[in-house]
Structures are given as structure tokens and as C-alpha cells.
């Protein structure tokens, strides 16, 4: 049984899906051991599987079955009841928890399987924070359709900008927006402000001064080197979220013929 945080993106917001796919997840997992193991041994196995682990994706996986390295940030033991072990795990994107359980079972010598799993976090989305069920979505839509009231729908559905909560953001001039909407690279003179924590190749959000997301981009330099430079490319646009024509096209009329 698998439940919990499933980020859904609608229409144009789907361009931001990578933010969820690439960010860390947190789960509460109920693992069932196939033998009786002393508590201390279970605890040390959980500890052993924290940090860098090697994992081969399961047979029915959506990725190539090649052993890969994943980071388990943290495992907190919540409860042991006989052969049942309840724990919370925070891990890198693309970690298979079902596999983690069977690998731990193998390490313990008794075998184990995953019984129940609840995702409590997917990157920016947390189960305690504006999480809604399909029924609540349906009800919000009904209230909107039948009574014309938008509030509930605006609560269940949140702006795509929230997906960028934990990415570094770069805020740009109005005059640079439409070029980015056409897939252009972001040059340093177009930047008004930016957040710390940017490194070459890190994913960043390009935002307008009205806090609207324009695109998802890959940084070419660190925050520090962008701040120190006067020109050059700061980020390469990867996915455009804002529709072109939302901001004026002055960048075009300014182009000089060669």
C-alpha cells in the first residue's frame, strides 16, 4: 500500500516537473522482516544504510537496471514491533524504498520486504502543507462550477512558483523576460537580484520582478562569480514555463542588423 505526497502539475506548470523528479523525498516505511532479529542489530542495519548506498533498480523499474549510487540523508527508527519495523527515511531522488527494504533484509540475513509506504515529502511539497485529496479537489471544483466561488479551488491548486521554493532564484529585468520565453540564455546584465547557493550546473528558477516564474534553467556560474562579473552567461534556459508575449518584445526591436 503506497500513499502520500504526489505532486501534480497542470498544463503549462508541467514544464516544471523536473523540479519534483530531481529533488529529494521523504517517506515513512513499514518494513516486514522474515526472521527474528535483535533490536540492536536492526538499528545498526538502519545506520549502515545511511549515507551513500549502491542500489540496483528493481526488475519493473522505469530506468535502466544498472547499479547506481544514491544518498540516504537520514533514517529515523520510529518503532519496532516484533518483525515489523517502522522508520522514516529522507533520500535522494530515484531511491527505491522497496529495494532498500529487501537489501536491508539481505544484510540482516533473514530477508525483508516493504509492507506499507507513505511519502511525506517530495522536494518542495510536504504532507503537512496544503496537501489535499482527490475528493477535496472534486469538491472545490463543484463549488466553483455550481456556486461560482473560487477560494477553495485556489487553495487546493497552488501557483507553480511554489515548486521553486528550494531552488535558488534569479530575478530578471522586464526587458529580458521575453527573450528567455524564446529559449535564450540569461546574460548577467539582465539580472536584477539573485539568491546564494548557485553553483555551475545547478538548477535555478528564473523569475520576474513580480515573482512569476519564467523558466527553469541550468546555472553556468556560481552566485559569487555572477555578482563579480559584468557580462557573460549566467544560466542556460532548460524549460520555459511562461508563455512568450507575456512581456514586451523590446529585445527584438533593439537588435541591430549586422
Amino acid at each position, binding site marked *: 500500500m503506497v500513499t502520500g505526497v504526489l505532486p*501534480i502539475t497542470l498544463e503549462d506548470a508541467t514544464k516544471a516537473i523536473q523540479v519534483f523528479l530531481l*529533488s529529494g523525498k521523504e517517506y515513512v516505511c513499514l518494513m516486514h522482516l522474515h526472521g527474528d532479529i535483535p533490536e540492536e542489530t536492526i538499528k545498526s542495519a538502519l545506520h549502515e544504510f545511511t549515507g551513500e548506498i549502491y542500489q540496483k533498480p528493481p526488475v519493473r523499474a522505469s530506468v535502466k537496471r544498472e547499479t547506481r549510487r544514491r544518498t540516504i*540523508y537520514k533514517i529515523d527508527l520510529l518503532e519496532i514491533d516484533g518483525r515489523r519495523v517502522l522508520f522514516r527515511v529522507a533520500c535522494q531522488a530515484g531511491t527505491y524504498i522497496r529495494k532498500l527494504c529487501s537489501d536491508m533484509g539481505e544484510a540482516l540475513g533473514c530477508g525483508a520486504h516493504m509492507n506499507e509506504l507513505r511519502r511525506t515529502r517530495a522536494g518542495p511539497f510536504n504532507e503537512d502543507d496544503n496537501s489535499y485529496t482527490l475528493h477535496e479537489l472534486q469538491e472545490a471544483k463543484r463549488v466553483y462550477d455550481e456556486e461560482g466561488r473560487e477560494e477553495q479551488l485556489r487553495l487546493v491548486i497552488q501557483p507553480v512558483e511554489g515548486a521553486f521554493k528550494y531552488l535558488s532564484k534569479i530575478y530578471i529585468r522586464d526587458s529580458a523576460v521575453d527573450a528567455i520565453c524564446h529559449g535564450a540564455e540569461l546574460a548577467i546584465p539582465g539580472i536584477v537580484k539573485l539568491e546564494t547557493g548557485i553553483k555551475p550546473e545547478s538548477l535555478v528558477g528564473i523569475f520576474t520582478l513580480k515573482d512569476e516564474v519564467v523558466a527553469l534553467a541550468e546555472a553556468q556560474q556560481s552566485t559569487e562569480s555572477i555578482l563579480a562579473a559584468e557580462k557573460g552567461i549566467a544560466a542556460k534556459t532548460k524549460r520555459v514555463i511562461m508563455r512568450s508575449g507575456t512581456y*514586451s518584445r523590446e529585445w527584438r526591436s533593439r537588435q541591430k542588423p549586422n
Partner: protein
Amino acid sequence: MDDNSPIWETKRQLKILAQAETNPQYGRRPAERSIEEHLRLGTINLDKPPNPSSHEVVAWVKRILGVSHAGHGGTLEAEKPGRPDGYGRTPHHA
């Protein structure tokens, strides 16, 4: 994207590079969008029920809202083996 600690533990500061104004004629703050724009640029932090697959949940969301495209971020449960993808296919998803 993540290194040794999860992304939600990262602290960031804002640095100012230049002064600039934004023209109110273009764009709109996310909270000021029309309901149509709000849906088009919307996300849902969905609490997935145990039974339908992630795939099926996306199909249901599309049907409830009447939107043409939707995607989900990270399959929660491997698609069941030997089960046809019957509940309205979602050709466009991540």
C-alpha cells in the same frame, strides 16, 4: 541537485545586483491571476489514495478539472503488472 543534505534544509540569501522597476502593464503577480491562468499554471500537492496508480490519479485530476495536460512528479507505486492502463490514458505526462 541534492548533495549531502536534502534540498529543504538549504538556507539562501538574496543579493541585489542592480536597481530596476517592473512595468504593471505586463505579467501579473501569481496571486492575482485569473482562475483560468491559475489552473494553467497550477500544481496540486495531492495526497494519493492507496489504490489507483500515480498514472490513474493524473487521469482523474484531468477529468475532474477538465484540463488537457497534467503530469506527476515521481511515481508513487510501480504500475501494477499485467494490468491494462484502462482508466483513460495520459499520453502527456513526465
